[in-house]
């Protein structure tokens, strides 16, 4: 019974648990409830992952209404890959959250924070699992609205402005998406993605379809913060509570990319990306611009959350670049980086959260000499940073290796060169932190920090260890990413269409 309905439970558990959380006012109780729910969601994801691995894709009809009339939940290798990642990060961040949230959010609002967190989690999971284009919009709004609320809970008053900024741009993005959905519905009369893909050839040639594609592209690019539509991201990440930044940086933009992959490859199909409007080429250019501008700007940021936020803009560029190569190798590399980058940014932002807890700032000036007082936290930061640079035996190296390989195999060796050149910028923005934290003395009169509490250290160490683990044993991440890439491309290309 439970096993057969895992696909529904995946979303329903956190969605229904959220309103229950309103009744659980004490902060610790609210935290425990949210954590328990997130762990349950993670269990569902792992269960689905194993089911898909052995039994192939699952199609689940919500309420027994058969697709394409009812809402279909479509679980294939790509979606389980994403589900495991999102719910895994979601649960890890919650394990870490208790002390950090107590310090950064108004006590009377803490229970509401956990409610918003669970809603956001269910929205993200829903976007990934659903096979219905309009349903994606519904979950997109659930996750976005709860994100705005969580960001606005940041301690600084600027958090409100950041949340408002994000609200406007996020709404524009969502609206563009839904306009795109409306146009394809006009042409085909269906909202189910597989059904859309089937009917798409009949609609080919209509200008409306091209316009729809443009709306989809711009709307989703806003959600995943692809250059130059990333303006909301730095402020949102900087002023949000540390926990929110760690969670959103590792999941939210990734889901945006996932939806983009679904729309481009499942609905429109890979051939459409290169014929007509050269979407793939546009994406390559934007990705390169993101890689260089994001990393370059990251170098000059004093606030490290902001620096890492710009780094995220750059890293999203790498993922989009992989996807835009439109080959199994490129898609694999993009998805692999999506996974690995989630691990890096989780480790880095969790470490910064611990620093913020202890000294109330993550400005590079205030963090001088901090490594002597918080050695474990900064060691985790260094591991995350090395992974970001792409030093061998870290997860980041694996993604860079595959990305370069995909570029070479595509005959675009100049892309490989640009990839490594832009990653040199990461050396600069990571190393200046290492230098400040390890080689400078604590400033006069700076607060004496102590090592972060164990409840923060353990998830942080876990994330840092994951960066090393997935840099050495790539059997899970690699196999999953490759299966996911084949699932994403296979539907559109048939078998063996692109190598």
């Amino acid at each position, binding site marked *: 019974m439970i096993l057969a309905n895992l696909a529904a439970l995946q979303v329903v558990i956190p969605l229904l648990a959220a309103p229950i959380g309103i009744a659980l006012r004490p902060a610790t109780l609210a935290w425990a409830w949210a954590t328990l729910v997130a762990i349950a969601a993670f269990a569902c994801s792992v269960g689905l992952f194993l089911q898909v691995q052995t039994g192939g894709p699952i199609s689940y009809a919500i309420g027994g209404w058969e697709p394409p009339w009812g809402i279909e939940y479509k679980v294939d290798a790509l979606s389980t890959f994403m589900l495991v990642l999102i719910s895994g990060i979601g649960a890890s961040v919650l394990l870490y959250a208790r002390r950090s949230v107590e310090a950064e959010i108004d006590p009377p609002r803490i229970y509401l924070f956990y409610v918003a967190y669970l809603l956001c989690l269910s929205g993200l999971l829903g976007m990934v699992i659903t096979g219905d284009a309009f349903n994606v919009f519904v979950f997109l709004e659930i996750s976005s609205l709860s994100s705005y609320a969580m960001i606005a809970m940041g301690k600084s008053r600027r958090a409100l402005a950041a949340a408002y900024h994000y609200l406007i741009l996020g709404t524009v993005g969502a609206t563009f998406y839904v306009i795109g959905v409306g146009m394809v519905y006009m042409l085909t009369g269906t909202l189910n993605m597989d059904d859309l893909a089937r009917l798409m050839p009949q609609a080919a040639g209509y200008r409306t379809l091209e316009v729809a594609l443009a709306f989809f592209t711009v709307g989703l690019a806003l959600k995943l913060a692809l250059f130059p539509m990333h303006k909301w991201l730095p402020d949102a990440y900087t002023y949000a509570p540390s926990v929110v930044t760690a969670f959103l940086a590792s999941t939210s933009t990734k889901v945006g990319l996932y939806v983009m992959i679904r729309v481009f490859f499942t609905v429109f199909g890979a051939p459409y990306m290169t014929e007509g409007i050269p979407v793939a080429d546009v994406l390559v250019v934007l990705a390169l611009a993101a890689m260089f501008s994001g990393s370059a700007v990251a170098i000059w940021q004093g606030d490290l959350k902001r620096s890492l936020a710009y780094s995220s803009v750059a890293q999203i560029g790498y993922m989009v670049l992989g996807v835009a190569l439109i080959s199994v190798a490129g898609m694999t590399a993009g998805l692999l980086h999506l996974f690995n980058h989630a691990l890096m940014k989780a480790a880095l932002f969790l470490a910064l959260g611990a620093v913020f807890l202890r000294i109330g700032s993550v400005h590079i000036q205030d963090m001088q000499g901090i490594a002597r007082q918080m050695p474990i936290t900064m060691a985790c930061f260094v591991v995350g940073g*090395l992974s970001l*640079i*792409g*030093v*061998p*035996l870290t997860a980041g190296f*694996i993604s*860079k*290796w*595959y990305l*370069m*390989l995909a570029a*070479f*195999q595509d005959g675009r*060796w100049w892309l*490989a*060169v640009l990839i*490594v*050149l832009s*990653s*040199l910028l990461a*050396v*600069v923005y990571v*190393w200046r932190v290492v*230098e400040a934290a390890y*080689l*400078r003395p604590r400033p006069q009169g700076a607060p004496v920090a102590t090592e972060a509490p164990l409840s923060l250290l353990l998830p942080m160490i876990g994330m840092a260890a994951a960066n090393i683990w997935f*840099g*050495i*044993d*790539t059997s899970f991440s*690699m196999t999953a990413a490759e299966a996911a890439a084949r699932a994403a491309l296979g539907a559109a290309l048939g078998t063996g269409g692109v190598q």
Partner: protein
Amino acid sequence: MNPLLWILATPLIGGIGIALAGRQPNVREGVTLVTAGALMWQVWSLLPEVLAGGRPSVTLFEVVPDVPFAFAVEPLGMLFAAVASGLWIINSIYSIGYMRGNREHKQTRFYICFAISLAAAMGIAFAGNLFTLFVFYEALTLSTYPLVTHNENTEARRGGRTYIGILISTSIALLLTAIVWTWVLTGTTDFRPGGILTGAIEGPEIGLLLFLFMFGIGKAALMPIHRWLPAAMVAPTPVSALLHAVAVVKAGVFTVVKVIVYVFGIDLLANAPSAEWLLYASGASIIIASLIALRQDNLKRRLAYSTVSQLSYVTMAAAILAPLSIMGATLHIAAHALGKITLFFAAGSIYTAAHKKKVSELDGIGRRMPWTMAAFAIGALSMVGVPPTAGFISKWYMLLGAYDRQAWFAIGVITLSTLLNAAYFLPIVYAAFFKKEKRNHHSDAGHGHGPDHDHGEAPLPIVLALSATAFGTVALFFLAEGPLALARQVVGGTP
């Protein structure tokens, strides 16, 4: 466990031991010495098997499909590992004298990082493919960074930035690209006698790939990417001695020779006009670095530029592409290691005893520190290539190889640079022994270590260590048959 894995694990286990013994300096230094001894014994006990033609190897696991984490011993790596592990013991004895004599801070961290660096050097020496080599190459860069920045002052930070900046960026931007390209072309990154690229690449692309490799291997300090090496001189002298005269830079030129012999293959490069630039680039590097060395008054900087020049000897000898010159390159890895570590030991000895860093301050110091300056003289003679020192033999083979290939440019470079080497080393020796000590007329009251500071020899461990390496420099001249046998196997000779 496989003996190769034990060799990698030994320094790491030693590092843990050092950390545990951190509060008791005598025990801690004991652990370092025992670890170094155990490492040397294990490495040297592989020698007979390798000399007899054995190639012990072990494959661990695949990090990405078809790219395994693998180790394999071949003669070149054997020589590099034997030199590095052997000198670690001597250097540890020296470190004890130096670090205590100068009352350095954070000595435990120093010894731990040293042990990790040695593990990384062993990994480079025994790497079975380019990927494994790259992993340890980066590990060596990162583990030596805390050693370079040991003093934690502005100068150390600046030096460290240059060090890590150049080494990491060249390796990621160029070397990694070269490795991925090689993999795409051949489907393997293994080191194989005769190379793996034959038939997979042709025309100007050979020259381009060679460019990516040669400038990607920043540790070989081919000009213009040599700046990290003088920058690294802010480190305590034992670090300059073992790491920046032996482990790190030799890892660089070792990789250069390895790539030329086992990845490209001598025959492929010999028939590729686009690869000829390396001969000229390395020749220019030798001469320019020597000219810069001539003008340095800071002794360690002069030694650093001498190292840049000597490293390019190895690169040029490999680029001549004659079997005899490749043998010369192999021998030079050992010969230069012994000579240059002696010179650095002497520089550190002078600093510890006399607190002098400048060449111009060394007049007459030979009378106060006869052992140190005698060792310095032997090291200097080896750099110039005067018999009976090890430097003569490697230069001899390089010249033989150059003559074989009618590489007159190389012969000219070697001749000219020999003169330059003599010009920047021998005056130091002359001044130390035959000039009169300068008397400082500025009163330097209140400072116990003024230039007039009355001093004798450095502490005993330092004198022991530098005498041992000076002795080794001469001994290698007479016992060159061992390294020669290995070098012959590098170029395909049978055991």
